[in-house]
């Protein structure tokens, strides 16, 4: 059996928790090579997502991700808002009406999310953006889907995203605000790649301990 709407809702709630917990860290990363708002924006956006999910509980994983898409789009602003918004929207579309997400569907939803970010942001791997977390994550997810279940897919994706985020440290940014710094952007982690890794880790946690996000407000 695959992962259902409970998993999707838990994923978003655990993502919100992760954004709140890592808010200052993400602000600090953005302060170094950007404008100090990434942690604040993601925190504000995901708190709003949680609220929306509680106001009108979704019926399918795709519906849950669509709520996240619309809310992030309208509450986050900055570069991250539309990029994450598009990612969730494409993932939601990819999942369609599925009530149960198996390994293959999971990998393709992650790929759709990544493609959405690329379509909007035009970044290439190595540009020091969230794409540097998502691209290895999608590759790893597809590999894992060939042999494992959805949890394996998510675990593979999270690990690859974490490695991908870490690997942005030495890069010189070529997209987003950090690109203005030129060579001075090297030696710092990309905040969007870091938040992407946190979000994919939350997906694993939601799958491995169902209900761990609680049902009431945080």
């Amino acid at each position, binding site marked *: 059996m695959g992962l259902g709407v409970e998993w999707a809702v838990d994923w978003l709630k655990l993502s919100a928790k992760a954004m709140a917990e890592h808010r200052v860290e993400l*602000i600090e990363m953005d*302060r170094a*090579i*950007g*404008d*100090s*708002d990434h942690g*604040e*924006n993601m925190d*504000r956006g995901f708190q709003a997502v949680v609220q929306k999910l509680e106001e009108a509980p979704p019926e399918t994983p795709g519906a849950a991700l669509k709520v996240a898409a619309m809310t992030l*789009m*309208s*509450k*986050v*602003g*900055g*570069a*991250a*808002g*539309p*990029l994450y918004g598009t990612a969730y929207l494409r993932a939601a579309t990819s999942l369609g009406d599925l009530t149960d997400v198996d390994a293959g569907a999971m990998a393709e939803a992650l790929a759709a999310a990544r493609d959405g970010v690329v379509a*909007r*942001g035009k970044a290439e791997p190595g540009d020091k953006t969230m794409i540097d977390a998502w691209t290895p994550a999608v590759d790893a997810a597809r590999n894992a889907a060939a042999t494992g279940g959805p949890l394996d897919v998510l675990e593979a994706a999270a690990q690859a995203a974490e490695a991908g985020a870490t690997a942005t440290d030495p890069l010189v*940014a*070529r*997209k*987003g*605000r950090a*690109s*203005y*710094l*030129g060579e*001075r952007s090297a030696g710092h982690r990309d905040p969007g790649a870091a938040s992407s890794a946190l979000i994919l880790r939350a997906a694993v946690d939601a799958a491995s301990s169902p209900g761990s996000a609680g049902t009431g407000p945080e």
Partner: protein
Amino acid sequence: MKKLINDPRAVVDESVEGFGMAHADIVTVHADPKFVVRKAAPVAGKVALVSGGGSGHEPLHAGFVGLGMLDAAVPGAVFTSPTPDQIIPATVAVDAGAGVVHIVKNYTGDVLNFETAAEMAQAEGVRVRSVLVNDDVAVEDSLYTAGRRGVGGTVLVEKIAGASAQRGDDLDAVTAIAERVVANVRTMGVALSGCTVPHAGTPSFELADDEIEIGIGIHGEPGRHRIAMESADAITDRLLEPVLEDLGLSSGDKVLLFVNGMGGTPQSELYIVYRRAAQVLAERGATVERSLVGNYVTSLEMQGCSVSVLRLDDEMTRLWDAPVHTAALRWGA
């Protein structure tokens, strides 16, 4: 961090509310979603101008809403571009059927959010054109970056395009004049100190007592180079040189010289910079036809300034001189 604020997360709400109270004769403030519209909007037959971006650059953009300039401004969180759910209703609210021009500073976030909003407003039947402002010559190699940023020159685009719309030009004409300003304005900035985003609480960067950042944007991001402190004249030369070079300024050109404070620098210092910049322009054979000196496109309380040069033609000069009545820029009305 010491600021005249209450809750760091309420800064934009309360500040825009106060702005609306102080300028109730010029603007109406919509609280949620947040945007500021010209009291008279929609103005029958007139092309509407909408701009917006992260907060923290006051008076940009709300301070430029009013007769002869913007019809709406859409403030985001501090240094965070606004969202489509703000931009769309602002666009719809000011459209009088003649179409709307979005004036967008070139940042990934602003571009993406305005792009989405434009698409959705079009779907609601509003004709929308977008003009990207990208005057910051500090960003070299724009092939390898998100492209040049929109900085100080934005206010000149808004004023001149605003006058074009006010006199009744159509959507194509207003868009064209806005683009002509963009094509002819260049800017470069310097910071003597960082600035502190209220929700972050720590300065965007720290400079030693003898250091300055050259080539900063307007979001407290570090610049391209950190150098040792210099005299105002030397700094001015350093800012002006790439501006003039990129502009390809030639003797006989008429220009508007704009010395913009970043928020925490006293006016007296801006005039010292102006003096030098005007001297250099005179030496190069350019005529400073119009001037603007003051805090117009700021980075919170940052100390520093930017120097913009706009190559004028007679029409731009006429439009610059046309009446404007906004909270932050007013003449002839």
